């Protein structure tokens, strides 16, 4: 019997969901665990619930704004760091050191600085996302094959021509890779900040549902967030793949 | 087929990849038959995809034929025969995480040589190929030619009667190939092993072989067998002789059309 892997995978998922459903109904304490059927019901209700949807929307907005800021600042800074030898030698090591700092340690500080509303989430998402973009841009500039540069120069290309016609096209795949990595980090930053403390965003509800022991609703809202994450990640991944088709 | 006279007997062997009726089915080898005498060096030569490496794998028991039979010393081949057959591959199949000496010893461990004997045999094999000083080096530290010599040492350490070599010198430059070819001929003269050698190089085939089996383009059949009547060890003089030149030209004529055919060129 020749089953395709996709079908088998579906089978595995269905089997796990069934085990979850039956297992929790038989052995689970409803205070801590919820079967998927209840989660689905809670999810359905949630979609019609105004305040919760608003909170999800706020979170999505935070994600997008943080991402835009990270790209808007990270892209030019990354380019400068990559192209300018002095900047790269002096400041890039500092960037790398900052990148290595575990940002969870400064979360309370960021909240103190920006408050408990969306600005702090945007700030924390920004600090997470800006680094991958800068790092990939610098790597992208380095990655241009020297033989291509030599070839262009031998044909008499000026520095500007080389930049626009050789380096920049090479940077595009790196840029999209950086965007994909930045999105992953952005999600992490914004979600961490939301889960820590939130008034208008989704973190408010996760804390509410946790403290009032409502696992079905908690799981439902987590599913919504997971769906948002998957969609955003997938968008970035598709964009990257589309733009990198010629890449070696 | 209880004929123990020949080291290797191949009878009507065919090999196809893919199920019957599948348009993507590839018939690599069609009805190949040959006999290899003990102590003979047989070269298999032909265009790419003609099934010569496939035949080698079938002889070595790494594959079972779709049709036909392979026998080693009269006994039918059903799987690898590490005590009778040793392999030397084209890409260096030396384990990079072990030293050269350990690589040779590991081969013996797989074959089942008692632990106490391994070290001595390994060092002897390395001396035979001239790598005694590099016993404690890692493969990454060796040149291409040295890596292949190390592989040969591993195969020799197994002390088998039969050696199967699949384009072992293909990745090396021509100069190294010449030197290693001379060494191989000398080894053959000394040890009397039966060697089956796959190659693309016309000169290499004539220089090394007692007989050359010429393959057609896919599906591969043995077009003809050419005898090189010349004793081992082959000398430098043979390399520059008229005889070698003539045989090489003969091979060229036989192969030229087959190679063109493989490239899809149907010009006359």
């Amino acid at each position: 019997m020749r089953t395709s892997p996709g079908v088998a995978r579906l089978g595995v998922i269905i089997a796990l969901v069934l085990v979850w459903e039956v297992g929790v109904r038989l052995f689970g304490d409803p205070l801590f665990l919820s079967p998927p059927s209840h989660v689905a019901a809670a999810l359905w209700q949630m979609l019609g619930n105004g305040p919760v949807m608003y909170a999800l929307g706020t979170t999505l907005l935070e994600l997008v704004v943080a991402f835009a800021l990270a790209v808007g600042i990270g892209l030019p800074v990354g380019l400068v760091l990559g192209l300018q030898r002095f900047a790269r030698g002096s400041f890039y090591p500092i960037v790398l050191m900052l990148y290595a700092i575990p940002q969870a340690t400064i979360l309370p500080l960021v909240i103190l600085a920006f408050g408990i509303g969306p600005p702090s989430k945007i700030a924390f998402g920004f600090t997470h996302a800006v680094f991958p973009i800068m790092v990939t841009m610098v790597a992208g500039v380095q990655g241009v094959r020297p033989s291509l540069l030599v070839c262009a120069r031998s044909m008499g290309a000026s520095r500007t021509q080389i930049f626009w016609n050789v380096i920049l096209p090479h940077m595009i795949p790196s840029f999209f890779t950086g965007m994909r990595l930045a999105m992953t980090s952005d999600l992490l930053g914004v979600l961490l900040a939301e889960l820590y403390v939130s008034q208008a965003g989704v973190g408010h509800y996760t804390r509410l549902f946790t403290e009032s022991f409502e696992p079905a609703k908690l799981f439902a809202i987590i599913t919504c967030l997971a769906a948002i994450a998957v969609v955003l990640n997938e968008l970035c991944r598709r964009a990257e793949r589309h733009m990198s088709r010629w890449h070696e | 087929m209880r004929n123990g006279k020949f080291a290797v007997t191949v009878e009507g062997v065919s090999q196809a990849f893919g199920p019957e009726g599948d348009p993507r089915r590839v018939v690599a080898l069609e009805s190949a038959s040959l006999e290899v005498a003990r102590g003979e060096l047989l070269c298999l030569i032909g265009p790419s995809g003609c099934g010569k490496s496939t035949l080698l794998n079938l002889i070595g028991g790494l594959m079972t034929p779709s049709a036909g039979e392979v026998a080693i010393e009269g006994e039918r081949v059903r799987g690898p025969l590490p005590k009778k057959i040793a392999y030397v591959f084209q890409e260096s199949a030396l384990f990079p995480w072990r030293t050269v000496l350990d690589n040779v010893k590991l081969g013996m461990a797989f074959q089942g040589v008692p632990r106490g004997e391994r070290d001595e045999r390994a060092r002897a094999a390395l001396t035979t190929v001239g790598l005694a000083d590099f016993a404690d080096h890692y493969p990454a530290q060796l040149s291409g030619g040295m890596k292949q010599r190390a592989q040969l040492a591993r195969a020799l350490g197994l002390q088998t009667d039969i050696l199967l070599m699949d384009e072992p010198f293909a990745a090396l430059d021509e100069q190294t190939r010449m030197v290693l070819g001379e060494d191989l001929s000398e080894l053959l003269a000394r040890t009397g092993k039966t060697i089956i050698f796959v190659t693309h190089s016309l000169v290499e085939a004539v220089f090394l072989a007692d007989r050359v089996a010429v393959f057609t383009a896919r599906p591969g059949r043995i077009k003809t067998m050419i005898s090189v009547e010349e004793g081992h060890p082959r000398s430098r003089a043979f390399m520059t002789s008229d005889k070698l030149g003539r045989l090489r030209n003969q091979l060229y004529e036989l192969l030229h059309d087959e190679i063109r055919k493989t490239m899809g060129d149907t010009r006359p």
Partner: protein
Amino acid sequence: MSGARLVYRVTQAAFVAAVILVWWLVSRNGYISPILLPPLTDSVHEFVLLIERGAYWPDLSVTLYELVVAFLIASTSGCLIGYLVSRSRFAVRVFDPLFAGLYSIPAILLFPLYVLFFGLGPGSKIAIGATIAFFPIILNTIAGFDYVDRSYITAARSMGASGLQMFWSVMLPAAFPVVLAGLRIGFILAFLSILGSETIASLSGLGHRIVSYAESMDPAKMFAYIFLAIIIAFLLNAFVSTVEARVRRRHG
């Protein structure tokens, strides 16, 4: 040191000096509230006190304990299941995309569920640490064993290697570097996620301590613990890199 290198080093030193100067100026003139940015001297003083008195130990030990347990769970399950999956081409095609797909969901989302289930103690931190570390480990284990160069396996088979010999002498050493990289990534991710989750909801641990000082408006002590956490992070990173490098070297 070459001329260019020297210039870079000097610039970096100047940058650090400038940051310290700005910090000092700002806190002296009160441009930023001292609750947010205490004088650098106070923070350093608190940090030194912290180290001298060893008051950091209770929280550090909790964090390290959570890290070790989480990593052990993730590595044993990840390596074992990863190896078993890699044995069948079909299983790889079924499960590898599944794990890779799950990896793209930020696993920190599961943390509230773990808090609901395990409470505020180390259990929820261990759970999230193990969950997050599991994925790079299993993906790398599958990849490591799946992509063992065919030529090694063929060579070993031709020499008569038994199943056990094949595993110990060929597959394991060949897969090892990739698996090790997965373990390194998993370890670091476990640490970062534990630190983050301690910040969100915990009763003890380094992350929690930072939060508690933020909430009790004791920023100097908060900065002291931030410095400590950063140092611990660098030490763990260095430790993991050294282990990997040393094992790599011996591995040849």
